[in-house]
């Protein structure tokens, strides 16, 4: 395993140091906790605070998305491990502007427990009202009638984008929560992996695939998928993902959507665009309108190979929020 690192135990701290050094115009680390990052952008009094977070190894998520129109702060966990309550609470206090705070993260046992503890503490210590929206976009992780048990993967980016825009527009906390829940409800994701990742500390591949095999419905932590399949062409792969999503979202003629083809780490833009091409052709054949597309790396899994497809079914409110500007170190969008 060849990685550009210094010591496996130091990767997260050094990454955060490098990040803050590279983007001082965007982010700062809190003096109280070296894993507590907040944006240097202006937060008008009365703006709902937006906190997203989770383990490291998913960059640009989560810490890369701090800035105007996205997150106000991010507590940073170890690789693939939820941050503990302390940095979460510190971030919460630092970015709170009097209108409450929304927490968003993927639905994992660890994140739920740590963020819940933090929310309790923020209320207890400073009376800050915190609401939580769990990202549960991964179709493969539980059946449709157990939607609340699904885990959150790359589609989280679109949920964060929605909440960030709503907060920036001055929505009240309940309203931010409402529209963010709606975004999550109308969002589905499914992914495939072609190559595993390696956590620096163990150096071991997260799984081994035979030549010609792929994992279908994988997680973004190197977890195995729900099923192993023979390797398919980009078009066939896109079809597997699309079929599942189209069916659950019940997409029909006239629907408007936003599409996200997310690379997991080592898959080239070339491959992602070839995959997108098929998605586009199929949706156009269904006469579904694509309001906006994102093709690139948004939520990675270290250097895993493969991609996921996310589709959010829009209404006018969601579409408007998704189109809003955002300005962060790893994601910038003009309106």
């Amino acid at each position: 395993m060849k990685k550009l690192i210094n010591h496996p135990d130091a990767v997260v701290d050094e990454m955060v140091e490098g990040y803050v050094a590279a983007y001082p115009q965007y982010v700062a680390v809190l003096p109280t906790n070296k894993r507590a990052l907040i944006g240097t952008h202006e937060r008008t009094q009365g703006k709902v605070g937006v906190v997203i977070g989770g383990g490291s190894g998913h960059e640009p998520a989560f810490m890369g998305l701090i800035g105007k129109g996205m997150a106000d702060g991010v507590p940073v966990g170890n690789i693939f491990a939820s941050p503990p309550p302390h940095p979460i609470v510190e971030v919460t206090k630092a970015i709170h502007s009097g209108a409450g705070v929304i927490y968003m993260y993927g639905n994992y046992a660890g994140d739920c427990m740590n963020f819940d503890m933090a929310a309790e503490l923020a209320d207890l210590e400073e009376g800050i009202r915190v609401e939580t929206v769990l990202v549960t976009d991964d179709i493969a992780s539980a059946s449709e009638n157990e939607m609340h048990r699904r885990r959150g993967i790359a589609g989280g980016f679109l949920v964060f984008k929605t909440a960030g825009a709503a907060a920036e527009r001055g929505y009240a906390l309940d309203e931010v929560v409402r529209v963010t829940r709606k975004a999550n409800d109308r969002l589905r994701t499914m992914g495939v992996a072609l190559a595993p990742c390696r956590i620096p500390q163990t150096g071991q591949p997260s799984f081994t695939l035979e030549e010609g095999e792929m994992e279908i419905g994988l997680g973004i932590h190197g977890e195995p998928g729900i099923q192993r399949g023979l390797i398919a062409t980009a078009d066939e792969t896109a079809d597997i993902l699309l079929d599942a999503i189209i069916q659950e979202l019940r997409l029909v003629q006239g629907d408007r959507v936003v599409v996200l083809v997310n690379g997991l780490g080592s898959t080239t833009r070339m491959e992602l665009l070839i995959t997108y091409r098929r998605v586009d052709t199929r949706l156009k054949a269904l006469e579904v309108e694509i309001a906006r597309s994102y093709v690139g790396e948004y939520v990675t899994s270290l250097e895993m190979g493969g991609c996921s497809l996310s589709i959010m079914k829009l209404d006018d409110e969601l579409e408007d929020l998704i189109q809003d500007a955002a300005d962060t170190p790893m994601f910038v969008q003009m309106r």
Partner: protein
Amino acid sequence: MLTIAYTIDRDKDYLSELDRKTGDGDHGITMSLGWRAIKETMHDLPEEADCGTLCKTAGMKFLNAVGSSVGPLYATAFMRAGAAVNGKKFLTESDLLSFWTAFVNGIVERGQAVVGDKTMVDVWAPALDSLREHYALGNDVHACFRAAVSAGQAGMIATADMVSRKGRSSRLGDRSLSHQDPGAASAYLILSVFADMLETLNTKEGDLV
């Protein structure tokens, strides 16, 4: 405590390996980071600290070093256990029972897992049951713990035949079958090292924790 930290550190690759089968492959790293943090706490604390303070500090250190799933679980365990033995410098045999009862209840309360969910609870719950049972029979404390360890071991082994219903591995469905749960494996390690230590020490049990 130091021995637990040492054992976890030694076996961390094995624990991560188990986690790769059904989870994200970091369990060994996380546990070893957590116990290393506890180890540092032990060094930093004043000699005269009582068990309550000791446990609470250990819990917070563990938590803030790792986050993750096991962070809140073991942190809550330590907090509850610390409260149960608050103010004491040495633990009697009955203190030990209160300690472990609170410890395990803390885990269950935080994680809401029940036996059969393929988690560390499949070790801790039967171990505690067995401990209480043997205490009730008035058995020698060492025998009680030996019984708890074998109940825990049986629970750990049984996780291999369970389909996960809690935590990361619960999304795998049947693919989680025939792999032991990593959290159960580390729980068993902690429990058995504790029991071993108890055997070697006779009086100053307070030092153990």
